């Protein structure tokens, strides 16, 4: 079953919290993963792989560099989920 945008945001925030300790509240659509949330590339890859499992979506490596903001990731996942 497809997840709504709100569900994807909440789920992604959970994964970010789990990996980095950043509170889920801080993970908002307009935030940049690197500039605002200070997430490094290694944590980002872990979050991406966990998001694939959680949402049943494939996020190709070449796509990851385009996921600048939380909204980028939420939109990609929402549009590409099974």
């Amino acid at each position, binding site marked *: 079953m497809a997840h709504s945008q709100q569900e994807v945001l909440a789920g992604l925030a959970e994964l970010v919290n789990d990996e980095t*300790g950043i509170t889920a509240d801080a993970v908002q659509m307009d935030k940049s993963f690197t500039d605002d949330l200070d997430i490094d590339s290694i944590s980002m890859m872990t979050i991406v792989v966990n998001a694939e499992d959680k949402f049943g979506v494939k996020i190709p490596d070449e796509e990851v560099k385009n996921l600048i903001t939380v909204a980028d990731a939420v939109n990609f996942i929402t549009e590409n989920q099974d």
Partner: protein
Amino acid sequence: MKRVVVTGIGATTPLAGDANASWQALLAGKSGISTLEQDWVAQYEIPVTFAGQAKISALDILTPQEAKRLDPSSQFALISAREAWADAGEPEVEPERLAVDFATGIGGVWTLLDAFDTLKERGPRRVLPMTVPMLMPNGPAAAIGMALGARAGVHTAVSACASGNEAIANAFHRIQRGEADVVVAGGAEAAIHPLPISAFAAMHALSKRNDSPEQASRPYDTDRDGFVMGEGAGALVLETLDSATARGAKIYCEIVGGSVTSDSYHITAPDPEGAGAARAMLQALEQARASIEDVEHVNAHATSTPVGDIAEYTAIKRVFGSHTDNLLVAATKASTGHLLGGAGAIEAVFTIMALKEQLVPPTINLDNQDPNIPLNVPRTSMALSRPDAVAISNSFGFGGHNAVLAFRAV
């Protein structure tokens, strides 16, 4: 050369979660060895079903995010180093004058083998991106260096069960030479994993006393049948006497020697003549400018293997001759098991506490002392007689490594 003192200690061991509680448990004659309850013991039919597991889980101390990025060996290292650093009063030292010398014998074995399971079961994309920095043997030293902002160098000695002592010896000489003013030094190990246990068991190095784990580690006893694996870490803060005095730090004792030699005799067996081990002890005493009669306490390597305990006795006798009878010897692995790369570090903590409190800890499980090892090994704690006593702590490792530290009470 600069004089070097110990101003902080930390440890997480099978006896307790910190240095002082570990020391108190040691004095009380406790054993940190217990039956392994993990599922993998039965799953793989592991022939040895007990070990010295850390009394306090690292996961109870670290944040989940810290723990997630550190192999268990680095987790123990960081916990012990933070304790030592706090104990030393968090010295204000220029980052460029602060170094780390932290050892491991085996490295991130849990990380490596978990990652291989992930690869086989779920494919390469699911292998954690942090796998390499977590499994590398310099991981524990690097974690401590990052936590304390050390910029005078972060170093890792790897010499099997002599690693902890070699790291502390390196730290001592580094300060003596003026390369750093303060060094956090020690060693960690977290190898209570089915593979290392199976491998050590395959070489008949481990005790098989599955029915009575607390009695299994019995150095010098006639019924000893091998060592008992332990896990944890020990850490020291070493600094120049000048630095410690200037900031009014509490001083546990002076470190006066740190010597490393090699046998090049056999990859695992000690040289039965004990020549290399004896040279390490003698060199440590030369560095200390101490006579053999100055030495009152020896924290022996004494792993509880039939061959190793005798070889060390032979080396001690070779160095100390008739003074051997006057030495108060402690074999603290009887209580903690053998922490491999962490062994020298926690035994340094015990040796330092022995000098500070002028008290040699008891050696447990010594019911029938091997007549071929007529050392003076107190069964209950015993007072030292000299306020300026010198103590040495021995560590030897596969590969023919011999590393000996010497400390003097102040």
